[in-house]
């Protein structure tokens, strides 16, 4: 994972972070932050993405550690490129917990 990722049209990206109060993963979307990665806003322009990241950093009352990371456009929204991000979007592989368990107590 590289926190210094810069999106372009060829290599788009999303902004992701952890929810401050609950800790779960969230993605920046049009109306704030969402635990659904498919709703994440896709950035293809470096300047726009950097401004959005600054806005995310300013929302320290909601999220922790926002960063830009590569994503590809998929039929249902952005999809992860690196396996680390895939795990963040799915949850651990040893239990059906995290985002994959929509009805879990904390997500």
């Amino acid at each position, binding site marked *: 994972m590289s926190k210094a990722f810069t999106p372009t049209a060829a290599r788009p990206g999303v902004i992701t972070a952890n929810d*401050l*109060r*609950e*800790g*779960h993963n969230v993605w920046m979307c049009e109306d704030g932050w969402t635990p659904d990665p498919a709703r994440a806003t896709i950035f293809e322009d470096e300047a726009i993405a950097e401004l959005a990241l600054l806005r995310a950093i300013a929302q320290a009352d909601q999220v*922790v550690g926002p960063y830009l990371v590569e994503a590809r456009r998929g039929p249902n929204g952005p999809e992860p490129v690196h396996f680390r991000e895939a795990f963040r979007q799915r949850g*651990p592989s*040893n239990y059906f917990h995290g985002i994959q368990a929509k009805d879990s107590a*904390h997500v």
Partner: protein
Amino acid sequence: MFDVRPVETDYVRHRAAQFRAQVERRLNGSLTEEEFRPLRLMNGVYLQLHAYMLRVAIPYGTISPDQMRTLAHLAETYDKGYGHWTTRQNIQFNWPRLVDIPDMLDALAEVGMHAIQTSGNTIRNVTTDAFAGAAADEVADPRPYAELLRSWSTDHAEFQFLPRKFKIAISGGKKDRAVIAAHDIGLRLVERDGRTGFEVWIGGGLGRTPLLGQVVRDFLPEEDLLPYVEAIIATYNLSGRRDNKYKARIKITVLERGLDTMRAEIEEEFKARRRDFHGADREALAIFKDRFRAPSFRDAPVDGYETARAANPAFRSWTDTNLHPHRVDGYASVVVTFKAPGQTPGDATADQMRLLADLAERYGHHDLRVTHDQNVALPHVHKSDLPALYDALKAAGLATANAGLTSDIIACPGMDYCALATARSIPVAKAIADHFRTEGLEEEIGNLNIRISGCINACGHHHLGHIGILGLDRAGVENYQITLGGDAYDIPAIGERTGAGFPAEEVVPALDRLLRAYLELRQDASERFIDAYRRLGPAPFKAALYPAQVDV
């Protein structure tokens, strides 16, 4: 039995209240994340891949039934029903919400527990032999000394901002079961001319620069323990590097400055510090020795045990692998492994924790230990109680006869949970365990320590595995390097890297080739994998791992 410390319970309650206020200030914006982060880390709170993680201290792995029930309550109320035993004999909860952690710390404080100094650049949980006070080969019980170090190091004003984290282990047996050579300070209890003291090691550690410790003092009288340890850490506190976190552990300080230079400085510091200790430490040690007095052992026949062994092959197999010799006739120490088929190594459910608490009260003199290899031990069980204990464990899926065998794998949480990980550990550990059980080779292979880390920080102690596995990210794909010949116990050794790493799906076939080769190469069934490796060297084992290269 381990007593809750009433005076310190007030202290941990106070610290829990402090942390509650810090969380409130973070949530209302009075503290930035940068300001809050060191405060949460001082209370064992990390932010991991999917959620916050709370690491709770279990001093030297010793825990009472009531404390274990509190952990079960936390797992059920604030987590997803389980916790994870760590290699520092602690427990981690992987799913707490930040807003709930103050309540968790309050619940812990009620039973004298806390999460203080389970993170940060401080003196971490002092670890020791899980069979302390019970082992047949024990020179002296290490727990009073571990407690002395714990009480001295907790909130020690001088050592709250060390160059890097600092880990101490104490071994009380003739055989080292505390891995002292891989610690910043390792203490081995020894007797000389009728006096109890310590062989003192410094400069061991794993991570990206694995180094075995060296003996800095071959005999330290027990009454000098605190001033000498304080002298070591004070010397390191001033001379350890703070310019590069990867070179900040004492192992690098010793490497760069030389053992003799360090020893001379430590001895000089020791002379000065010793004058400041006026005997309170020795009085405390006497109190702690009394606190850890032996339970009232029973003198009863063990006929039922022998009868059950003869009648029940599964029970006999379990007693062959999961018992450790006790110093009192008629007793044994029991290892309850958390490595059942399909299980995540080291994960315990709330129900399992409660069962262990009940069984410790019924059969184990109210004593439980978390082992550094992510299992739980009942140190004192009369052999006549073993059949009933086994039946109760078996009914709960906790009677797997695999302590010290292939499937008794140490594995860090890896990229399933850890924000630092570069690859997953848990699925690899489960696949290896399942494979060798399915193939029916585990019993034939015998003693084998496999250890898996999901990154170079080596929380899974892969360097010390007879077979070590290190998960890395190679161009966006999980890849696993294999090391051979490491040993944590008999002859401390750092494993040697064998060659190119393996994709995840090739790890099990590679280990299958390796261990089948071992079975062919060994002299007889008593020659363990590590013994055969030492006798033959790496060549035949590398040939098994990389057959294509040999063909070329």
